[in-house]
């Protein structure tokens, strides 16, 4: 009795299979709590098992790249905040490094330390949101409260330094907008002391939790070859056993002066993707402690202010945000204050493309776990 079920599949679905059971389609999103924003997924189900998944993007496509063509370079830094708002401060740096390459401007030592410290604070903030959402998606709403508790402390520091909680718009070619206040270093120190104890509690809460173990070990395995082929980066790639971190591979800023490890896990399942982010929080704390020790008390914090005009050419920068490889490609067709085109490569876009590979054969509740461990931010995909 086996026969092909669908003579014509909806657009996007490709797998041709013959079954005796009845298949059906489920629509998930664009307004769904576990898709982390306005993402729509269509699932082809065999009973409760996922056969195939097709993501539909564009529900938050805001046309940033078109808009950037009529903006000045400095105005685009503000737009980059709104791409991946969890790592806004890191996106700023990605754009600014590309501009610095064009302007040929360096950054004094104190400025570099400010950059690295804010980068790592941003990374911890983003991973704490991941911790909360991961626990929340598995059914433990308490984790959400925990993750956001320490994140608020980072927001306090960011607010004191940049004037804004979320969309910072802080870095400028040659340094940053302002110097850090005197209270910055003591506050970061106090925060790290607090976070160390808090992380111990949080790890005890989830890492050995039997529900988490059962629901994440062996779920959503992404092999090393697939992870590279689909262009995954950041914690997702490193959880699959590839040691690739831009901070180590192509060190930007002063990341080559610090002693830190790149955590790598080899199973590529949901549990490894969770563990790697916890390990990265500890590595970030390590970098921050070294920064506190070496932070120059005196000295200029930015180089001489220059008009932001880029000569004709194409400039490319890449940085490692909390989510992965964030690349900015600036095309200047005429020497001036406005770009001809700016293109951003966000890390979450390839992750969602690889989602189909990960969910096949899993149950629909596992999809929620896998989505949580990919930690996507949809506005950064759609731009």
């Amino acid at each position: 009795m086996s026969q092909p079920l669908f003579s014509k599949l909806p657009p996007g679905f490709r797998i041709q299979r013959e079954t005796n059971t009845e298949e059906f389609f489920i629509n998930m999103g664009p307004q769904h709590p576990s898709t982390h924003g306005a993402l729509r997924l269509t699932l082809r189900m065999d009973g409760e098992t996922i056969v195939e998944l097709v993501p539909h993007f564009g529900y938050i496509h805001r046309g940033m790249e078109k808009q950037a063509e009529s903006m000045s370079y400095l105005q685009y830094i503000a737009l980059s905040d709104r791409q991946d708002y969890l790592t806004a401060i890191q996106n700023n740096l990605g754009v600014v490094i590309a501009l610095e390459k064009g302007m040929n401007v360096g950054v004094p030592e104190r400025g570099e330390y400010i950059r690295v410290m804010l980068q790592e604070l941003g990374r911890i903030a983003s991973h704490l949101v991941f911790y909360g959402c991961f626990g929340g998606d598995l059914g433990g709403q308490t984790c959400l409260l925990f993750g956001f508790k320490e994140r608020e402390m980072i927001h306090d520091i960011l607010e004191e330094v940049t004037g804004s909680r979320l969309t910072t718009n802080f870095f400028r070619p040659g340094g940053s907008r302002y110097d850090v206040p005197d209270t910055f270093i003591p506050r970061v120190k106090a925060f790290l002391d607090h976070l160390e104890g808090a992380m111990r509690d949080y790890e005890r809460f989830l890492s050995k939790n039997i529900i988490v173990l059962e629901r994440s070990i062996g779920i959503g395995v992404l092999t090393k070859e697939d992870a590279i082929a689909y262009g995954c980066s950041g914690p997702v790639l490193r959880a699959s056993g590839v040691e690739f971190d831009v901070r180590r591979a192509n060190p930007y800023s002063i990341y080559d002066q610090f002693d830190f490890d790149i955590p790598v896990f080899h199973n590529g399942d949901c549990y490894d993707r969770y563990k790697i982010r916890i390990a990265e929080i500890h590595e970030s704390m390590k970098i921050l402690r070294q920064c506190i020790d070496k932070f120059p008390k005196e000295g200029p914090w930015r180089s001489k202010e220059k008009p932001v005009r880029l000569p004709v050419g194409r400039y490319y920068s890449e940085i490692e945000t909390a989510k992965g490889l964030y690349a900015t490609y600036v095309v200047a067709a005429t020497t001036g204050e406005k770009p001809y085109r700016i293109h951003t490569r966000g890390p979450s876009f390839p992750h969602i493309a690889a989602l189909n590979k990960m969910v096949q054969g899993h149950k629909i509740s596992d999809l929620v776990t896998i989505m949580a461990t990919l930690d996507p931010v949809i506005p950064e995909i759609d731009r």
Partner: protein
Amino acid sequence: MGIINLAPKVLDPIPGGKYVVNAIDYVVNWARANSIWPLTYGTSCCAIEMMSSSMARYDIARFGSEVFRASPRQADLFILAGTITRRMAPAIQMLWEQIPGPKYAIAMGACTISGGPFIYDNYAVVRGAQNLIPVDVFVPGCPPRPEALFHGLLTLREKILKETCRKPWHEGLPKDVSTMDRYREAAKTWAALEEMKDEEMAEARAKFKEEHPDYKSSYKPIRIKKEDFPEVERKPFRRVGLTQLELYQKLTAKFPNITFHTHSEEPVETVLANAPADRPLEVMVEPEDYLAAVEFVKNDPEFKMDFLIDVTAIDYDDHFDLVTQLRSIEVGHKIFLCVQLKKDFSIPEEKRPTSLLASVPTISHLYPAAEIKEREVYDMFGIDFAGHPDQRRIFLDKDFVGYPLRKDFSHPEMIRRPL
């Protein structure tokens, strides 16, 4: 609440009945205003601040709104957190229709008030939520702080407390006034207010001078001194993998048509040898060589370009530049292959904006990552990828007219940025 709304009709004729109606109002409003359950909805940055407001530090539970419902059928309040795009608009209207009345909406953030940072040169964003659904409270900010959201919530509470059985909640209609019109009106009012203020101030100053003829101010303006900063040299970058010159020589040995584009008059080799270490090699490839070149750099043991960073394009007057950005995870070097695709000008001019102007072979069978990137380029530029397994629009609706990232793109809803 049909029965309660009948209360005035039944009770008002009875002596003392209006006191009962007032009591009913009091109880109903007390219940409604203190348990406004919001819908779990968020598209972008504001959603994170909305989440923050429901967490331990800010604790939205103090105002009775901690129960975020995932289903619109259980919600009373629609917090529009984040930009509204044209593609999302029908979903928002559907969500609003699914919420049972009495229902309220808070437009959170600049994007939902007017389009915010996306007001100019934008083809995708709806300028203001009030064009879609009736909004009760606007909360400005980009994104607003949690405290601002609470202020919006308390303002809404006041509004709810003003409702009575005699004047019950009714669904309003979305306001069909364009954002620019409202802007102009607001600007006019603002200018009038400023003028009035100026006149009043001038009067007050004149009066003060009359009363105190020999008054001298002791105030000295303090100007912040602009600090002088020294110029700083750029740090040298560590070179990883093969140098640009080596990559270039190895590529040209295999594909002699590959060229390096430079504005300098020096020979290519000298330019490449002196190039900064952090700059990737960007070479021009002929369209015929493109597929073979990508295949070569992927499989060659010296190149090992196993990681596709991105595929993107740039629109020029008569051609597209398709840039394929590749890197080697193991070795660390990067190559940007740039293909110049001549635009097909045999297509009549009036049809050009809506038709595919160039074609190039796909590389999605070599790099699975290229599939979505090529779909994006197809969507934004209208470049055809021959042999692509699933060439559909990715970010825009399938009935969207035109390709937005072309320089000659125009959209009826686009407002040009004033210079």
